[in-house]
């Protein structure tokens, strides 16, 4: 029941009272109008396009061409153009899949779990973090499809009645992946879109030309900001947060099963599910930091994404990074304690074998460098924090790389081999980065980067907001 009056979608109707936040979640002096204009004017073309945006878009679009070329050559020649061969059949494509899907997790954590936990600071981050989730899942989804060799048969992953009487192997986590990732994408998309509806209405009401009015008007789906609209919006938003919460855990848990249900040494580790989930949030927050900093600079959003937000993100990155590091310790500890000849020898191979450099690089970038975040300076200085987050991106990629190169030295020394990605592996990998950058740049230009509605709700009641308690308070 919506017992609290909702902020109007039309900013001008609000009292022109300014508000200064002592919790440091909103900087400067803000009211309903300033927040609406700050965010909405970017989409309405009222703010000049910053140079940084062009650099991001053009570099992303250029890299995207590498993906197009890489995929065209792959489909023409087959997966033989990649470096995969016996004994490593899961190459960089799987590394990229897990890397991207992990990055997506922070978006759902911020939008769903932190909403249920009454964390007000999520409000400045949730919209662009959710967009990050969607684009990251799109990038992730490419890799299992193109890895199939015959991607036009991808629909075989889903059970459907057919005259060949062929069904998916339900006992394979690869099959679970298809369900988990598609569910994740659907729920994330719905959650993202539902949250956008009142903002679309704001843009419709403030449109500067007919096209904007029509496009944003259609997207707003007839939103008028009536009490019944708010009531249904808030109920649905809360329900979707409830549905999204288990997905944060389930998706990467199932991704971890891809490796852990095997009996390959160091893949078959029971710690993998929580270890992967923590790693996903770790990587996701590193990406949130990388995206928050340009938004702050290029669009002057420092008042809405404050250093308090960067500080909190850095702390979560540090905390989840420590859980990931515990996972590294746990793997070695159990291999030592268990003294299974395969587990222990593979551990030694991992550390000191031909790919030992990648293991130590992983430890450096994922365990050692993030410890700098114990110092406040590294949590609040944008450049330093971005460098640490960059280290995490490298580390989390190598974490999965270290897992796949374990296959080069399996139980049987006569089957040992080497693995080296080819140019086409890297074309798909960096090309996917291009896809992400392009999509994110377009999102920044045409959709509200921050939630206008929720940022306004963050204002105190005296300034027309709801103390940031809207959805959870009304759900009582």
């Amino acid at each position: 029941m919506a017992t609290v009056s909702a902020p109007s979608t039309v900013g001008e109707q609000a009292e022109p009272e300014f508000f200064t936040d002592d919790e440091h979640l909103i900087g400067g002096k803000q009211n309903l109008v300033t927040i609406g204009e700050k965010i909405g004017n970017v989409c309405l073309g009222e703010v000049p396009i910053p140079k940084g945006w062009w650099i991001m878009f053009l570099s992303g679009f250029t890299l995207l061409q590498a993906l197009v070329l890489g995929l065209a050559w792959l489909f023409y020649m087959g997966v033989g153009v990649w470096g995969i061969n016996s004994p490593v059949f899961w190459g960089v494509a799987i590394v990229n899949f897990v890397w991207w899907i992990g990055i997506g997790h922070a978006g759902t954590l911020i939008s769903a779990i932190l909403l249920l936990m009454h964390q007000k600071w999520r409000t400045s981050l949730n919209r662009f973090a959710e967009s990050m989730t969607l684009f990251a899942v799109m990038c992730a989804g490419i890799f299992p499809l193109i890895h199939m060799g015959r991607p036009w048969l991808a629909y075989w992953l889903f059970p459907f009645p057919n005259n060949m009487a062929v069904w998916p192997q339900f006992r394979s986590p690869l099959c679970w992946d298809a369900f988990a990732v598609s569910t994740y994408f659907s729920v994330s998309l719905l959650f993202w879109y539902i949250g956008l509806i009142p903002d679309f209405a704001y843009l419709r009401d403030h449109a500067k030309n007919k096209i904007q009015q029509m496009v944003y008007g259609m997207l707003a789906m007839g939103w008028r900001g009536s009490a019944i609209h708010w009531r249904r919006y808030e109920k649905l938003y809360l329900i979707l947060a409830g549905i999204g919460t288990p997905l944060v855990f389930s998706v990467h848990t199932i991704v971890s099963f891809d490796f852990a249900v095997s009996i390959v040494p160091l893949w078959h580790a029971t710690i993998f599910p929580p270890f992967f989930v923590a790693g996903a949030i770790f990587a996701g927050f590193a990406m949130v930091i990388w995206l928050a900093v340009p938004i702050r600079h290029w669009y002057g959003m420092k008042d809405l994404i404050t250093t308090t937000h960067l500080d909190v993100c850095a702390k979560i990155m540090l905390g989840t990074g420590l859980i990931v590091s515990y996972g590294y310790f746990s793997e070695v500890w159990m291999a030592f304690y268990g003294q299974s000849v395969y587990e222990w020898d593979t551990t030694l191979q991992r550390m000191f074998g031909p790919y030992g450099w990648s293991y130590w690089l992983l430890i450096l970038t994922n365990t050692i460098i993030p410890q700098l975040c114990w110092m406040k300076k590294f949590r609040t200085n944008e450049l330093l924090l971005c460098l640490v987050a960059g280290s995490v991106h490298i580390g989390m990629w190598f974490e999965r790389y270290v897992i796949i190169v374990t296959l080069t030295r399996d139980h049987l020394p006569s089957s040992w081999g080497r693995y080296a990605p080819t140019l086409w592996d890297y074309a798909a990998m960096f090309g996917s980065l291009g896809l992400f950058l392009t999509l994110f740049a377009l999102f920044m230009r045409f959709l509200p980067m921050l939630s206008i509605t929720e940022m306004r709700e963050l204002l105190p009641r005296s300034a027309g907001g709801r103390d940031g308690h809207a959805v959870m308070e009304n759900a009582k």
Partner: protein
Amino acid sequence: MTEHHHDDSHYVAPTIEANYAPLRRVALLSAVVGTVAFLALGIANASMNAAHGGVRDLFLTYQSGFVFWSLVPIGAMTLMLIGYLCSTSWALVFRRVFQAAMRTWPLMFVLFLPVAASALFMGHDSSFWWAVPAGEFARDHANGDPVVTHEVAHRQGLYLNGLFFLLRAVIIFGVFGLLMRAMLKWAPAAEDEGNAANKSKLKGLGGPGVLVWALLFTVAMTDWVMSVEPAWSSSMFPVVAAMDCFLVTMAFSALVFYSLVGENQTALTIVKDKFRIDIGSLMYAFTMIWAYASFGQYMLIWAGNIPEEIGYYRKRLNGGWEFVAYALMAIHWLLPFVIFLFREVKTNPKSMKAMSIMLLAICATDVIWWIVPCVPHAEDTQFFHLLMAIAAIAMVGGIWGLAFLGQLRKANLLPKKDTAFLANWGHH
């Protein structure tokens, strides 16, 4: 965060009148009945099964009692460290309970001595398979296979030997003891006088303290629980154990706190619905993570189906122990999963007491299930061994509980200054 709006400098928490006598009676009864039952059942079992590990069963069941109750001071220490690090409300509500539990740590070392004796001196009657010389182990379990002899000797030489086990335990007790001592030393000035320097020290200790806990708790659970099972190792197990550790500590603290506070409106006005909901929600989260970790461990071991791992579950899902596994699924996960969804349960002290008793009982059952089935007993004696373990838990709990209550009654249930946060916040 809203505490900025209030002036907390002049706040002094009211004295909470609490009657410790009923809890003391429960602890005393538990100690007496538990000791009598444990000794009677243990001696009966030892005399009936002298040649089949009767003495070993005494040590094995005692070990489950020790491990279960050791989780409370360890959990109190860890949750207190997290509480200082993250400034949580629940660590403020339960601060006195956590502190009293930490002060019992020296007693916990005394209660550990039978476990140490089992590892060092008991040989074939030890609860640890590795306390037997390698050749004898191979003779009893693998027809004297020299490969098994070599493997066991290798593991004993490397890690699983009595002296190294004792040394590790001394390090665990010592380091945890130092962390607890530091917190107990700095806390009075910080929480009763508002000493900023000490508050800062306690917050600074939080992060490194939790890291130390994570590493040493892994070693402790490897040694005290995992090593009773030959060949088995699971990197998820310390996570499962940690969730039980947190849940036992929270349930025990809620039981003690709500039992003492009861209908005391002075305390309940300070510990408002919001804080009670947070406590219940945290316990809910621990049951969920326990279920997640336990299921993950089970599913991966079932799917892998390799000899050195699957034995753990074969023993625990046969011979009567499967009913304990079903009870764990129902009471450790399903019931709390449904019941804790209701806000009214979390705000009502009576229902929280009932939930805490249920969770303590099922966590104790979980610990028994980890340890006691490691040696396959005859099917018709399993219930007998379960009773022995329950008696051991009552015995150790009673003895430990008397010491705990002695510490708890020394101070007011809520800290003088820090309670301002609870008093002035959480109205909506």
